[in-house]
């Protein structure tokens, strides 16, 4: 028995020695040959930049465009593109949390700018203040002042916005509306006037998809119900959610829900948009990634094949959300990460990224000729409209509120009780310290 053990031990040691010695010289050789053959640039080992995002699939090419720009400027850096798929970052955010808690932060990560970043990471003292970078690059003057205020706190600016999406957009097919003889509603009252007619014709007045799109619809409806000033006051903790205005928002939302499709919760947002395209539904309220879907995937011409308007009762208001990248404390390759952030904030960077992604640039000086007609109109609106933060996409409230809001929404979809929902919202706001 003992002898057998000893033999196994010896064999193992021998193997280790053989492989250990055998491999080392090979690596050196390989390094030498690659240097000899390709004298241009060699990616230095250990000189990495790890970018963490949820941009895979349709959005992957846009990110690739940015990475290409970065590689041109920093050829020696080995870029690791760490993506975790899942819309809106559902999975990516959980993975990021385990990595950060485990003391293994990526060099730079994608995050919805606003309270989602501030509530989770800034309050936890995990992010570096980017104010010096903003000043050095002159970004203070090119990003709209209101935007910089919304993505920062009084202690600093925490992320570089890459794009701007609009949440309160209503989509329709002009030809279909003509066929049914209806006009685009300017207010919800207009909508309620035409909806029964559409319903009688066998058309769903408003297409809705799974639950997060209900949250998305809620913010457009609530903004219309309370108005931009009250909307901001609500998120600053100055207006209670169970105040008459808050209840009114839920009541209006309940009324709107009566005109949506019954199978909503088993559809993806693309399928809800498809309902409008196929003429099974008249309108759909969705963020302007729907324009990207119709323009790029469905090859439809903006303005001609599909039309858009601000969602009812919110014209002149721009419910925005932005993807951004931040710099976590303890980033393993800080200099590379800062160089990356510089690319993101630059004019070239944002004009390379946004036309592909289907969003507008956060910069006021972007080259509009590169964008399609929808994006041009969105950029104009962004310049002149009242900009308010989106709830469903992380600008207005922290993640504790957002997580709880999803269950309040589930409750409301089942009970349709506006009073209970607004009370639950207020409790949730107290618990997650909204505005504090």
């Amino acid at each position, binding site marked *: 028995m003992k002898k057998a053990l000893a033999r196994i031990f010896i064999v193992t040691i021998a193997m280790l020695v053989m492989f250990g010695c055998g491999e080392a010289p090979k690596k050196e050789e390989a390094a030498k040959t690659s240097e000899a053959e390709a004298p241009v640039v060699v990616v230095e080992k250990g000189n990495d930049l790890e970018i963490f995002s949820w941009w895979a699939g349709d959005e992957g090419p846009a990110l690739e465009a940015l990475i290409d720009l970065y590689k041109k400027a920093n050829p020696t850096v080995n870029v690791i593109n760490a993506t975790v798929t899942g819309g809106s970052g559902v999975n990516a955010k959980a993975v990021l949390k385990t990595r950060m808690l485990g003391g293994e932060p990526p060099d730079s990560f994608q995050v919805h700018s606003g309270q989602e970043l501030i509530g989770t990471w800034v309050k936890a003292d995990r992010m570096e203040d980017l104010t010096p970078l903003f000043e050095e690059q002159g970004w203070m003057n090119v990003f709209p002042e209101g935007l910089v205020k919304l993505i920062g706190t009084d202690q600093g600016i925490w992320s570089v916005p890459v794009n701007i999406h609009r949440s309160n957009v209503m989509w329709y097919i002009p030809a279909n509306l003509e066929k049914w003889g209806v006009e685009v509603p300017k207010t919800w009252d207009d909508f309620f006037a035409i909806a029964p007619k559409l319903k009688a014709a066998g058309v769903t007045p408003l297409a809705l998809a799974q639950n997060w799109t209900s949250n998305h619809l809620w913010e457009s409806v609530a903004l219309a119900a309370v108005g931009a000033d009250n909307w901001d006051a609500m998120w600053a903790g100055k207006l209670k959610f169970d105040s008459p205005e808050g209840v009114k928002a839920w009541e209006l939302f309940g009324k709107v829900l009566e005109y949506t499709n019954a*199978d909503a919760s088993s559809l993806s947002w693309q399928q809800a948009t498809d309902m409008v395209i196929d003429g099974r539904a008249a309108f759909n309220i969705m963020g302007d990634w729907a324009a990207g879907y119709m323009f790029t995937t469905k090859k439809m011409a903006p303005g001609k094949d599909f039309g858009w308007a601000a969602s009812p009762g919110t014209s002149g208001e721009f419910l925005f959300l932005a993807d951004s990248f931040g710099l976590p404390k303890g980033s393993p390759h800080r200099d590379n990460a800062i160089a990356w952030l510089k690319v993101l904030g630059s004019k070239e960077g944002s004009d390379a990224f946004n036309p592909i992604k289907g969003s507008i640039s956060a910069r006021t000086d972007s080259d509009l000729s590169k964008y399609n007609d929808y994006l041009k109109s969105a950029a104009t609106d962004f310049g002149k409209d009242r900009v308010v933060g989106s709830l469903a996409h992380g600008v207005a409230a*922290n993640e504790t509120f957002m997580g709880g809001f999803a269950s309040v929404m589930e409750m409301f*979809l089942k009970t349709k009780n506006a009073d*209970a929902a607004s009370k639950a919202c207020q409790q949730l706001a107290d618990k997650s310290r909204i505005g504090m």
Partner: protein
Amino acid sequence: MREASRDRLKAFLTLLPSIILIGVFVYGFIGETIWTSLTDWGGSGALSLTPEKNFIGLANYVELFTGVLGGGFRQDLVNAVYYSVMLLVGAVGLGMFIAILLDQKPKGEDVLRTIFLYPMSLSFIVSGTIWRWLLAPQGGLNVLPKYAGMEPLDFQWLSSTAAILEFNWQNLFQILLYVAAFLLILTGLWLLKKDSGMAVKRWLVPGIAVGAGAWLFGDLLPEALFMEETHGFNLATMGIIMATVWQYSGYTMALYLAGFNGISQDLRDAAMLDGASEVGYYRHVAIPMLKPITISAVIILSHISLKMFDLIFAMTGPDNAETGHPALNMYLTTFRANNFAQGAAIAIVLFLVAAMFIVPYLVSQYRQRGRR
């Protein structure tokens, strides 16, 4: 004597690594989770390097069971109970049925056995995705009747908002008493034939007393919630149940088939000689002999159903109240809403419910071994 104690020392040393590992990584972390569930760890700043945690006692549990925001959790818990019961009935029943069919030794039995067992080797994510497609509102199962020339179904397997067997959470205590009474009476009726005196005294009378008491004095019981809140069996869970039964009935089939094969042919011949029919043989001889198998199938399936996560996530995704499950709720509460303490509380509730199934089984096993 010395030899014996040396032996014992060796045995202890051999076990020591696993004792330490299990102690730290299982029981240590259970303790850690219990501790977390008694704190207020959550909200902004929860992810800092040194998060602030204050001891707040059972407040998280109180919130889950009586708070406004715990409504989702309560629905999920009710859902999980219905889900477990239906899964047990479905998987054990179907598995036993297939096993009895295969026990008749039809041609190609081994091929069939493999076919039935095969679903179990799939990952839940794979089978969940396939079933989601099959159960889509305008596809798969719903269009099947078309091939027979009938109207397609329009049942929304995964998103129907209809619910049956609804009850008001306020009357929770009363309902629990009814369930207890029902179980007592059922056991009593079962035992009536064997030992009628005992059955009446031990089971039937207390059962009827509890039921009548709950009915007469139910109004005096404290209300479990300050507002009306109805929960019930959501029909959308049917889709999930179908998928799980499909995946696990092959497994129970294999368990039963092994049991049937273990029963000696002599017994079967003897039963047949005494004039037992096929049905009689299974009803009075084979299935009672396989009681241990039934029990272990119930234990395994019930704790699987309580821990179910990936299948539901793949089939309906997060935020689908109709098919919610506490395990999903725990993940979302913890890792999306950053509410670590409350997530830990949900985990502990789940742990206790699972223990309710497993501990009595372990105790009875232990006793049996002691008797031998």
